């Protein structure tokens, strides 16, 4: 009985969360006449794949997809490697002048100003090092913006872990790095997974810097490509929905694959508070 009631309560939440996705999927399969019909044909319409054809054959959305994937995966990996190392250092070593706390806050403070403030300086810097319109520029920027998050998340996980485990490894003759890689990291794997998913989603969806720092198809990411279908006189809802429907697949697959870790990782963080 209680169990049934739970489903009754879950149903509206599910509808609330999935209705926009359903709407997007159906728009991507409808002709323009059906897209704008009032009242809208909710379930019964003649589906068309024309918008998918327009997006991935006529236009270069396939290429944007690859760029997005390269940029998101690489920057997530970089942020995880650098950020985890930094977090481990802050969690395990006692630095002089209360630097542990001060450095942590300083790192966090880089997230406190609006991103747009850095757009023009970054543009000029990338111009001077001739990285404008490259995937590298986006990888560098996304890594930098994900770092504070990685450091703070991972710091929490490391602080939760008893030191005894690593010390046992050290006593047995392992190096500091060896203990980190062989003992500590496997234990915080759920935390790493949760952090990775977050970084990946942020990089995957990022729009502002992708727009400012890229100029041609060579380095354009999906969000910029999708926004490009808002033309001067018309908004190409069909193509935008088709591209967006494809764009959610990689993140969905990745999140499902890590689901087991995710729940543990997020609740670990939550208990820590």
């Amino acid at each position, binding site marked *: 009985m209680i169990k049934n009631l739970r489903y009754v309560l879950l149903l509206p939440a599910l509808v609330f969360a999935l209705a926009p996705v359903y709407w997007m999927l159906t728009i991507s399969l409808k002709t*323009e006449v059906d897209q704008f019909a009032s009242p809208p044909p909710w379930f019964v319409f003649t589906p068309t794949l024309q918008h998918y054809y327009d997006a991935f054959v006529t236009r270069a959305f396939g290429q944007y997809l690859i760029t997005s994937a390269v940029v998101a995966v*690489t920057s997530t990996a970089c942020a995880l490697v650098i950020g985890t190392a930094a977090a481990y250092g802050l969690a395990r070593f006692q630095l002089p002048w209360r630097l542990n706390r001060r450095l942590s806050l300083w790192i966090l403070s880089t997230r406190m100003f609006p991103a747009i403030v850095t757009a023009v300086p970054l*543009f000029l810097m990338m*111009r001077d090092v001739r990285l*404008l319109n490259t995937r590298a520029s986006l990888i560098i920027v996304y890594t930098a913006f994900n770092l504070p998050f990685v450091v703070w998340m991972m710091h929490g996980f490391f602080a939760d872990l008893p030191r005894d485990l690593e010390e046992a490894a050290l006593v047995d003759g392992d190096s500091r790095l060896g203990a980190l890689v062989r003992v500590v990291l496997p234990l915080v794997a759920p935390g790493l997974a949760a952090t990775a998913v977050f970084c990946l989603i942020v990089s995957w969806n990022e729009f502002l810097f992708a727009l*400012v720092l890229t*100029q041609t198809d060579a380095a354009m990411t999906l969000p910029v490509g999708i926004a490009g279908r808002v033309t001067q006189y018309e908004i190409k809802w069909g193509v935008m929905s088709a591209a967006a429907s494809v764009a959610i697949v990689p993140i969905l697959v990745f999140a499902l694959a890590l689901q087991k870790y995710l729940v543990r990782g997020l609740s670990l963080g939550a208990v820590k508070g």
Partner: protein
Amino acid sequence: MRLTLFLTLLLLLTASCTNQQSSGKQLTLAVVSGVEGDALKQAARDYESQTGTHINIAEFPYTNLFEKELIDLKARTGAYDLIMLDDPWFPRFASEQFLTELTPLLERRGQSGPDSDFVATSVALCRHPYQTGPLYALPYVGNSQLFFYRKDLFEKHSLKEPATWQDVLTAARTIQEKENGIYGYVMRAAQGNAAVADFMPIFWAFGGEMFDASGKPSVNSPEGIAALEFMLQLGKYSPPGYASFNADEVGAHLLQGTAAMSINWPAWISSFADATKSKVTGKMEFSTLPAAQRPGQAEIGNWLIAIPRDSQNADAAMDFLLWATSAEQMKRSAERGNPPTRQSLFRDAELVAKYPAYPAQLRSLESSRPRPRTPYWNEIENAFGIFLSKANSGELSPTEAMNQANAEIEKILQRTQATQ
């Protein structure tokens, strides 16, 4: 294991760095997303295979292209050799001397000025000051507003062709009263560009002027207020919520057959012949804008192509520019859906057979008017649009709206003059 991971990352990074273009005979072209930019992209690819000049394309959404170009031009990156620009941006770019003067480049090729086949109102946009000054661009896409109306409904209710705004009002009333589920008129009055674009033809026809002879704002003249009052009357026959409509909602209403008349841009014409987009195929007629005290005038909205002053390849860029705007190439652009800027093409038998609205489009273009030529048009349009929208949503009376708009425009002018 971790070393290999680190090395692969490093490799990935350097690999993506080498994406940088190497030097050689190549041009970079900034285009707008949409049918206008698509045609130029196609042309660039053809040019590439004909001449071997490599052309990089930078494509941006309409709403971002202006800022993108402004940042690059201001930072003097020389990133672009050719830029597409919407004509209202031109005074800003030209007055800040961001663009290359084209006449010397033309003279070096034995031409004294732009081809006389270009429509005069289009070439006038490419000069700074307007119409009389040196040439800084060439017109590529010849848009100007048209009046869209449902021929079938006009015949059914024996209404006469909408020659004046009074005719429009009468027809809107008749259609809305006699037809079920069809609004007489649909306009867009969302803040910003939308409201201003739909209002200017009424404003001009009623005798309004944004600036008087001495350059002071004069939108709150009796003519201006009368025009806004008329817009509100017409708004009674527009679908509810039109004060927040943009081009998209207007297009949707017309294509779904739920509204009978509108001011709109030629980009929409082809949709009315396509049954997957339109429920009213073959029923829409396109004409020049209605008159009132003065003859009807459309807003012109041309896409121009210019060469930034910091381009390192101005000569090669000019070759491409002349090639792309030649009659032969512009015809291909027209076949891809862009109105040309050459008179000969508007009269071309093949094109007219494909686009029956061309004669009306040429009449509209030749009699069209540019938006007031000021470097600060974007700010002024934005401010003006807010007050127009507020009047349409009932927040302000027409007189209040125009008085406040006038004061706001004056403030913008004072502020910008102070910083000059």
